[in-house]
């Protein structure tokens, strides 16, 4: 249950912040399920010996999982998850087991498109060291106060 207070279109302006949300620590056993759902059993995500042989400290969390947390950050806050209209996300750094991911966002523009209220924002995800793991933009609609 997301307890962040939801926003309305009139409250949004460039510079407004979307309430941050943290997730984790990340659980390596979830990567097995993610591999099955993705039907991608790349050992980089599952076998820590394999990962260490390639110079990594541990298995690497699947990118779609990292991204799913950033999506949750946005869509759990929306009045309806499918008020999401657009995303652009860049994969900046790896996520590893036990990382705690914090997602943040800042509004960059409010406008209407075909009459629908729209909000553009910068969004990003960072680990417990403050290192960005994902950066991007999201566009969504918010209801207006009547």
């Amino acid at each position, binding site marked *: 249950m997301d307890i962040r207070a939801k926003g309305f279109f009139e409250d949004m302006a460039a510079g407004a912040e979307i309430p941050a949300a943290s997730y984790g620590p990340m659980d390596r056993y979830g990567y097995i399920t993610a591999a099955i759902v993705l039907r991608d059993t790349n050992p980089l995500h599952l076998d820590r010996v394999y990962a260490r042989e390639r110079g990594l400290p541990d298995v690497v969390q699947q990118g779609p999982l990292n991204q799913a947390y950033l999506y949750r950050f946005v869509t759990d806050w929306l009045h309806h*998850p499918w008020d999401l*209209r657009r995303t652009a996300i*860049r994969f900046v750094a790896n996520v590893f087991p036990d990382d705690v991911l914090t997602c943040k966002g800042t509004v960059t523009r409010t406008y209407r498109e075909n009459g629908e209220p729209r909000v553009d924002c910068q969004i990003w995800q960072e680990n417990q060291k403050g290192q960005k793991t994902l950066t991007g933009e999201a566009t969504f609609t918010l209801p207006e106060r009547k």
Partner: protein
Amino acid sequence: MDRKQLIGREFPPVTSVIGEEDVRDFTRVIGDEYPTSKGCDAARQAMPPSFAPLIALRSILRAVDWEKDFALDYATGTAMFGEQKMDYTRPLYVGERLTIRGTVAGVVEKHGAKPFDVVTMLIDATDSAGGRAFSGSMGFILFK
């Protein structure tokens, strides 16, 4: 192999039914709430939007053979993600049959510690009626 010759190539479409088990398993991993249909269509169960890029990627991974189609040598690295863009026009529903088509739109060579290509693939997802479910693009980083 000059991967620029792949620009314009359309990979075979991949059709799959997005089943309840997959959505439930994945939402459990990320701690998302399921069911998630919050009044958008009482008769159908909406899936979390976070599942959409995953469907796209899963389909592309089934359509593409990185070693054969893109001359990727796994000894030098795996395929990594670049930028991913998605446009949504409607909710996606659990149980939907979606067809994903991937077309190579661009190949840009870059030089870091090792040279690599950024391959941009356009994604087009259609439903069983032929209507667009969502669209976008996925970037993949492939070392030379």
